[in-house]
């Protein structure tokens, strides 16, 4: 009986006797160990922050200092000029999905000469992810994504999608490790008409409470915002470079104190 159950579980396209899809649940389990990604929707923009897990002195981050559009990090990626994506889960799977999302956005631009509506991009990825739970006998993508974007129809939007291919819209949400804690903190402090500056403060406060390290810094934190340019009325995606992250943390009073750096050099 045990052997029969195990062989059934091996195929992603198979239901368990209780009516569950174990492979998808296992994928979500993998994501619960990944670095946190946090998103908050403000009335004039969206804020995304993520905890990096791949860090260390020997890591070569020289590319990140300039970066093309500031578009590719470990956790936060520019998907299109009007959408930023945050990923949590298996990095290789995430990179593949980000590439797919970018291609989908350009295909839409090619056909319709407009930026892809945010929900539509989420749907494209979810259709792909759902396919991997039903056809082909391949394992699902072990990635959850947050999509922060703007389109003229529904303005600023935040979506979350998971390995099952399901997605929903959120005012504030969190994926990855400690997402339960972060979610309750957000629930307490979020207000419907929050401004982007307050949202930045809220995001950084919640991140500092859920992250492993005691102080925030650009080695462990990735940060991005999506706003609307007041004159051109076009969405402005900004994926912060490491120096900009540190500057922002200093401004918010959450950066490393001077004593710490002094101790390091001596």
């Amino acid at each position, binding site marked *: 009986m045990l052997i029969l159950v195990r062989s059934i579980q091996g195929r992603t396209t198979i239901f368990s006797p209780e009516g569950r899809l174990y492979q998808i649940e296992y994928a979500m389990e993998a994501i619960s160990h990944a670095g946190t990604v946090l998103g908050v929707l403000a009335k004039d923009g969206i804020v995304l922050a993520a905890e990096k897990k791949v860090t260390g002195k020997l890591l070569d981050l020289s590319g990140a200092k300039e970066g093309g559009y500031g578009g590719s990090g470990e956790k936060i990626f520019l998907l299109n000029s009007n959408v930023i994506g945050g990923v949590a889960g298996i990095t290789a799977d995430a990179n593949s999905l980000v590439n797919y999302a970018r291609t989908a956005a350009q295909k839409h631009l*090619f*056909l*319709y*000469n*407009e930026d892809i*509506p945010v*929900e*539509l991009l989420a*749907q494209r990825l979810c259709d792909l992810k759902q396919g991997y739970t039903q056809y082909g006998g391949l394992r699902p993508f072990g990635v959850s994504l947050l999509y922060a974007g703007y389109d*003229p*129809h529904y303005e600023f939007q935040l979506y979350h999608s998971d390995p099952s291919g399901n997605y929903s819209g959120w005012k504030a949400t969190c994926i990855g490790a400690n997402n339960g804690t972060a979610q309750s903190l957000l629930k307490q402090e979020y207000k419907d008409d929050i401004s982007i500056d307050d949202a930045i403060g809220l995001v950084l406060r919640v991140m500092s409470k859920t992250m492993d390290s005691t102080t925030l810094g650009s080695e462990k934190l990735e940060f991005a915002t999506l706003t609307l340019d007041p004159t051109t009325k076009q969405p402005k995606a900004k994926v912060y470079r490491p120096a900009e992250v540190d500057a922002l943390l200093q401004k918010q009073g959450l950066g490393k104190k001077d004593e710490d750096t002094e101790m390091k050099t001596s």
Partner: protein
Amino acid sequence: MDVSFAITGKGYVILAADTTAAHSIIKVKLDEDKIKELSPHLLMAYSGEPGDTVQFAEYVERNIRLYQIRNLYPLRPSSAASWIRRSLADSLRSRKPYSVNLLLGGYDTTTHTPHLYWMDYLGTLVDVPFAAHGYGSYFALSLLDRYHDPEAPLEEGLAVLKRCIDEVTKRLVVAQPKYKVKVVDKDGVREVEL
């Protein structure tokens, strides 16, 4: 033989097309509707090779409608125009291209502006304040250059359109007596009597 005009005004686009369907020297039908309603705020007047016209127009109509059903909101006029242009451009590079010319008039509900696009079978797309297809364009465009006012209210727009129709009726050898006139504005699409 097909004649179509379109003009934009303050918050609206008017499209007019003749209603004759001809086969050789015979008028087979006198009340043909050559303006398709693609979505609640989008109109398309078509002309060109008989058969190709309806085939392509219906293909466009159904695809635009599919987009609208699948996704919660309809395509904006500019995006619909780009999609239709892409279809014509791909068709041109196939074994047998569609020989269809279009006038696309719509109201963008996100920016609250009317838009008019002139498209031909080569995949040319231009955003214009007024436009025409067919032999009638030789008369209409000069009149519209002189009398068109982009801020005119609907009554004035219809009066300018009537000028064009009267001139074509007067001077074109194969003139059409009847035209179907449709308007698109913030309230949607409706037919009007001139």
